[in-house]
């Protein structure tokens, strides 16, 4: 029995060695690129103009680097495409949208939860129809700190539609 256990031990670690030799380089080599040094990323002028957002509108995230936000207008409803330029140090950020203003440090009860911020990379989110007919708000809300750490006001758009851009 002891010799059987020894054989199992040697075989198990031979398999573990092969598995780690194959998987670790693959996993570690496909990690996201290191973050850039810039702390603020503003929207591209063309996208900003099309979305009807003023030039000084950016998403500002307290104490951690802001991601890039692009506003793209579709024919029926507003679509937001997010491209994270760097990893966030706060793992618990949630993105909310609402037409109503925030009540203090928390989004209003009517706010729509769009999802965890760190899971939005490359995903297209749809807002309710008619979302752009009135000014509305986006918030980044930290669960851990229980407060809004980033906000963006979306002005009402003109009635002419736009085309969707690729980020």
């Amino acid at each position, binding site marked *: *029995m*002891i010799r059987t256990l020894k054989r199992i*031990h*040697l075989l198990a670690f031979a398999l573990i*060695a092969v598995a780690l030799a194959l998987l670790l380089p693959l*996993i570690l080599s496909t*990690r996201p690129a290191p973050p850039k040094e810039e702390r603020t990323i503003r929207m591209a002028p063309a996208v900003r103009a099309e979305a009807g957002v003023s030039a000084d509108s950016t998403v500002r995230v307290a*104490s951690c680097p802001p991601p890039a936000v692009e506003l793209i207008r579709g024919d029926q409803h507003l679509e937001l495409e997010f491209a994270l330029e760097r990893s966030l140090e706060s793992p618990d950020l949630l993105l909310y949208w609402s037409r109503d203003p925030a009540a203090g440090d928390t989004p209003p009860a009517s706010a729509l939860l769009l999802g965890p911020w760190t899971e939005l990379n490359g995903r297209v989110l749809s807002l309710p129809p008619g979302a752009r007919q009135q000014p509305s708000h986006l918030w980044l809300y930290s669960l851990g700190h229980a407060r809004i750490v980033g906000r963006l006001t979306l002005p009402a758009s003109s009635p002419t539609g736009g085309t969707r851009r690729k980020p």
Partner: protein
Amino acid sequence: MRPRYRLIAWTPFKIAYDLALLLGLLMFLSTFVGIGLLAYPEITLETLLIRGLGLAALLLLHVTLSIGPLARLHPAFFPLLYNRRHLGVVTFLAALAHGIFSIFQFHASGNANPLISLLTSNPRWDSLGHFPFQLLGLGALLILFAMAATSHDFWLEKLSPPRWKLLHMLVYPAYLLVVLHVALGTLRVESSPVYPSLLVLGAVWVVGLHLAAGWCEWRRDREQTRVEQGGYVDFCGVEEVQERRARVLAIAGQPVAVFRHQGRFFAVSGICPHQNGPLGEGAVVNGYITCPWHGHQFHPQSGCAPPPYTDCVQTFPLRIREQRIWVGVRANPPGEGLSPGSDGRPDPGEVQLSERRNHE
């Protein structure tokens, strides 16, 4: 009825060992959290505890897994084996705390049951970037739980040493799960090359040690005795066995250890009957062969533990011919060489008889 072998459950040394271990863990966590709060004031205490406990469990797992092969490669590491189970239980407790804090932080804020959320919230098994790495950690934690829950000698006796050992060898796949959990989890968002390098170094260290120790044992087990005459096999030369130590070879598939003590040679089973420990890797201490795993002792000639214990290991007949040690294929009857009711040491007549037999 004479008592059978029972492990001493608690000793002052074990208490001091456990207190030092817990104190070290608390100091590590305090330092980690303190430096974290100073360097990253925006990080919550809960997040720092998750990271600190996870790192502590990872380091403890590496240490625990290193002890076995180190002791096989060099006897100086034998003392570390004695309380390895305590180290393993503390590793599980640190990993459990890491898991509980993580579930609270990442899965307890929604409407779904946190455990259901943990199991179902991320189905992206086909994505390296978003792989559900938390489930890998959960799998490792379940294995560590099974090991910690059965680490007491009660389960060792109930399961029998081979089954118990087989169960505890699940720590090897658990280690693989832990490494992948870290690589697919926190290292995905770490930009520094330091942390991946440390993880790779740790994996190379642990896997390399186990492969080296396993390879040495495999080669040793393959060294079969070649010559057999009259029920005895040519074991080795007398100069190959160091004083108070043993040389181990397989006879008929079973490890047999030949110890040298005060110039005499004794052949006993190479396996301790209590935990299947490598008795042949032990040493003769105070005239008794001492198991390197748990310190239990057996008389080299009779194979029996000193009174009041009645446990014995098999002994084998042994002869010396032309500076070569020959060991009998068939084991002696249990307790041969002991006079009934003695103090565990052979009487002078038996010593003379044995010496004639051992050195004829």
